[in-house]
């Protein structure tokens, strides 16, 4: 990994991805009420998601609530079994591993959760919380105290506070504790599931900076799951935009933000307010109507067509038929990067 680490990951052809996800599908059963609880349908949470994560790279996975981004993260880590598809981490297939076998994999693949209040055990001191991964993996010994202090410094916390309990820390500090715990086993890759969305902005900035520094110093790969495109623009090298269980657009960061090709990406970007009064007043908004359809019965063909401004305003009757009948594949259509739209066209939004 170190040999190839100097190259920018996104363009490094020939670099082996640390994590390779192919056609990942996760369905949750819907059961009937009553005693028997027959299965009456499926929530299509993740439907055929594929991506690669390279060493030292941050891949942003963005989308609105219910689009399946968190489920993707959890299924990659096998915290939930995948319905189908393949997850290859450092050359090993994870989907057919037992939970015991997964344990050794998780030394190299860790997760940081969104809610720093729910993810730390309130009855353990933070020293014990951060040391727990070491205990689980049988690495806890008399030198662990030094290791704890080092980890605390690494995430910008005072090592003297190790004997305190989670409630004695602020939200930002708790998230740092969660990050220290994830780093305790010196993983190669981190899944960051909305790591800063529960924090106030002035605190959030510190945690974002910390994540960037840790990546530079420890050579980590991040799968950064977020709903906030502004944070993703700041931290990610490549960005995958998800909608209703599918990736609709995947591109390098500058490419995606300068030349978004999928109507959903364009609408999402134009909906995000910019803290600049003049720019904000002059901006043209692409307002999309309605709400996300239920993932229990996603629309046929293109899943975004029910809300798509292009479908509603620009396409002819014949063109629309294709959106209804044929599902657009995530391929390049001359925009320089893949977008899952039959009629993908670059439009500058920002």
């Amino acid at each position: 990994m170190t040999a190839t680490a100097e190259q920018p990951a996104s363009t490094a052809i020939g670099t082996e991805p640390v994590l390779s996800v192919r056609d990942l599908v996760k369905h949750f059963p819907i059961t009937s009420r009553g005693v028997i609880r027959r299965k009456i349908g499926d929530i299509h949470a993740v439907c055929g998601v594929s991506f690669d994560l390279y060493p030292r790279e941050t891949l942003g996975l963005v989308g609105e609530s219910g689009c399946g981004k968190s489920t993707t993260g959890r299924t990659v880590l096998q915290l939930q079994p995948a319905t189908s598809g393949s997850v290859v981490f450092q050359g090993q297939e994870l989907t057919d591993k037992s939970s015991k076998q997964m344990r050794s994999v998780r030394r190299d693949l860790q997760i940081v959760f969104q809610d720093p209040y729910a993810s730390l055990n309130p009855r353990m001191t933070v020293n014990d919380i951060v040391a727990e991964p070491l205990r689980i993996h049988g690495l806890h010994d008399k030198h662990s105290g030094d290791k704890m202090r080092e980890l605390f410094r690494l995430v910008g916390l005072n090592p003297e506070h190790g004997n305190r309990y989670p409630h004695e820390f602020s939200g930002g500090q708790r998230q740092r504790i969660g990050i220290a715990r994830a780093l305790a086993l010196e993983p190669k890759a981190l899944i960051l599931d909305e790591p800063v969305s529960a924090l106030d902005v002035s605190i959030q900035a510190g945690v974002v900076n910390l994540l960037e520094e840790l990546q530079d110093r420890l050579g980590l790969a991040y799968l950064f799951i977020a709903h906030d495109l502004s944070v993703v623009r700041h931290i990610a090298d490549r960005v995958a935009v998800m909608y209703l269980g599918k990736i609709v657009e995947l591109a390098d960061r500058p490419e995606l933000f300068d030349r978004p090709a999928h109507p959903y990406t364009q609408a999402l970007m134009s909906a995000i307010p910019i803290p600049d009064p003049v720019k904000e007043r002059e901006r043209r908004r692409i307002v999309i109507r309605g709400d996300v359809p239920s993932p229990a019965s996603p629309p046929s063909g293109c899943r975004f067509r029910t809300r798509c401004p292009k479908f509603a305003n620009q396409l002819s009757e014949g063109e629309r038929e294709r959106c209804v009948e044929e599902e657009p594949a995530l391929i390049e259509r001359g925009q320089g990067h893949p977008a899952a739209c039959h009629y993908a066209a670059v439009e500058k939004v920002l």
Partner: protein
Amino acid sequence: MSRPLTSATADAHGGTAAPAAATAVGHEAGGDAVLRVTDLTVDFPTDDGVVHAVRGVSYALSPREVLGIVGESGSGKSVTSLAIIGLLPKTARITGSVRFRGEELIGLPDKDMRKVRGEQIAMIFQDPMTSLNPVYPIGWQIAEGIRAHHRDVSRAAARSRAVDLLALVGIPHPKERAANYPHEFSGGMRQRVVIALAMANDPDVIIADEPTTALDVTVQAQILETLQKAQQETSAAIVLITHDLGVVAGVADRVLVMYAGKPVELGSVDDVYYRPRMPYSIGLLGSLPRLDAVDQDRLTPIAGAPPSLINLPPGCPFSPRCPLRQGVCDDEEPALRQTDGQAHYAACHFSHTLESEDGVPEGLFSATSADFSGPIAIMPPTGAVAPTEGPQS
């Protein structure tokens, strides 16, 4: 608490040189303000001590104006609004004055307050799931809101007005949907219903407390559009409370920045965003990752955390986190004083040093990732030292 506060506000009055000293802070509305808040304080006695949630808020709201109130969690922005419409629990101790068209609302018996609430001042809450009654159809709830204030309106008329309102806020098939219950709507649709409820009695003031925080961004854009439509329709003034500086930039005319229960900056959106004169506002703007930034280098967080509102030390509550901090900051709490602009106020002893700068002063906050300022330098410059080498200085 009252001692530094009264002296602080007295200072501010001197600065504005307004004859009506009692209400001079930060308003341009003159005599025709619809809502005038003066020296509002709210204390909550708790087992651990008295929480000074709001420590002297004053503003005046002109008709049709949109005032954005921004601040982080715990800055007192929501409590201020709840105090205005009298929805705080009885344990809360409220002082100061809130005048709606000249009528004092603080201390008003609940019976009289009910006439103001909903009819003259309407409120939109953050969570549309909990602000609607789950066991009544939404049309019924809107009609009830109308008939609560206008007994002379017939049930049928109220119901048809409810349908009109639902159509206005963009609910498709309003006539049929009026018979639906809240759980049959999505979050965005529910918030539209709440906006329709707020508009029902043509209020003069709508207080929207984080109306879009629980919603996705694409839905947020729809709701903000609806809110602006509601304003045009009712000509109400809006107090928009949010932590999102982007939302305020697009919608508000003026901004009030709150920190630790007090306003620390007040001015037009352009003044506050382009010429901030209080280090906290500067820090807040600098810590935002921006969608329109091509290559933002490092974010500049504000070190530390907001103070506890139980035992506030004397002096400026922001001083422990402030890069401009000097001796005077720990001794005396700065008043909200007029700064360079006519209607631009900032609460900082050193805002004059920021005045010469055009635009947002840079380099005030450092792009650190640390969270405590202890004796240990936590992060040497990127890539310089391996983590195993321990403390550096």
